[in-house]
């Protein structure tokens, strides 16, 4: 089983397509966030929002599957979407730290979602016009979903910020805890820089003005000051994760690890 070897999946064969690790990173990111959101199922603050959270989780799960399938194709070693999702260890996972953070209370979930959606939406806008047709096609489909997610999380940011003193206090706390994970999203790794130079991945610096403008608008509506000078905690995209990912994967991969090689 190749997945149990210590070599990082991103190294792969020398001929591997340079897009492979990036597509895998996109897949991991959407899967981990979908997994987190799916933990809300049955426990949401109100029935209508339970459905909304599940819809977002299902969108992201679908997006993750498209990326994994494409990654498997790019890799060309016969691995399947499930091999990639279920048989890689935490150090091989390439999602940014933000998405693996626990759900916390609803304010944490909303802040995490807002930070992600704001980046995700702009990223997909860039990817959909990119030169790789398959990646562009996935991005185009996902963009519609991401636009709705961003609307949803933005409106909740505003409701919580400009709601009750308690919701404001909880939102402030979530912002104080999670904002430091937002910088990683737009800070390219060496691999990402390489792809950006090849023109395969949008330049993150170019995404920032639109992201910042949206953040400023939403936080103003929410009557919350935009955090400044927050240190950007990083590592997830290079496989250095927080403690949370190990537990998450233990649960996610339980069946495949316990009963290897079976069809479900």
């Amino acid at each position, binding site marked *: 089983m190749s997945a149990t070897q210590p070599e990082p999946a991103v190294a792969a064969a020398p001929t591997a397509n340079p897009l492979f690790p990036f597509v895998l990173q996109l897949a991991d990111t959407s899967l981990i966030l979908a997994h987190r959101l799916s933990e809300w199922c049955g426990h949401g603050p109100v029935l*209508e*929002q339970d*459905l*909304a959270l599940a*819809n977002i989780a299902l969108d992201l799960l679908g997006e993750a599957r498209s990326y994994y399938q494409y990654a498997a194709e790019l890799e060309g070693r016969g691995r399947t979407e499930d091999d990639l999702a279920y048989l890689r260890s935490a150090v091989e996972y390439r999602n940014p730290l933000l998405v693996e953070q626990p759900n916390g209370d609803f304010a944490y979930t909303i802040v995490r979602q807002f930070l992600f959606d704001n980046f995700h939406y702009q990223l997909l806008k860039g990817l959909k016009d990119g030169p790789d047709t398959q990646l562009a096609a996935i991005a185009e489909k996902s963009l519609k979903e991401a636009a709705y997610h961003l*609307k*949803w999380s933005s*409106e909740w940011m505003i*409701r919580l910020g400009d709601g*009750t003193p308690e919701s404001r206090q909880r939102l402030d706390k979530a912002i104080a805890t999670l904002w430091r994970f937002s910088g990683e999203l737009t800070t390219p790794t060496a691999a990402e820089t390489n792809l950006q130079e090849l023109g395969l991945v949008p330049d993150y610096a170019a995404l920032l003005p639109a992201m910042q403008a949206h953040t400023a608008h939403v936080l103003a509506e929410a009557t919350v000051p935009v955090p400044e000078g927050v240190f950007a905690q990083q590592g997830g995209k290079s496989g250095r994760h927080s403690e949370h990912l190990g537990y998450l994967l233990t649960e996610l991969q339980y069946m495949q690890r316990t009963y290897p090689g079976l069809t479900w």
Partner: protein
Amino acid sequence: MNNSEWPLWEVFIRSKQGLDHKHVGSLHAADAAMAVQNARDVYTRRLEGVSIWVVESKHIHASNPDEAAEFFDPAADKVYRHPTFYDVPDSIKHM
């Protein structure tokens, strides 16, 4: 502190272009914008719609069932309003 439940909204969905909006059910939401989104998340998960209307339930005014007889029965004997009331010879076409 507001402890009361979110208001109830009635949801109407146009299933495809060219058709009327049809009542499909109701839901709770804090405001109209949320009601539209909740309706999207609750009632269009299987491509059921292309357009959504929501109306807060308290704004719907209904006829009184106790007055159903005086409201609706008088229309029952106006058979001449219906095309089938008229005999047209078989040889006449396009009518």
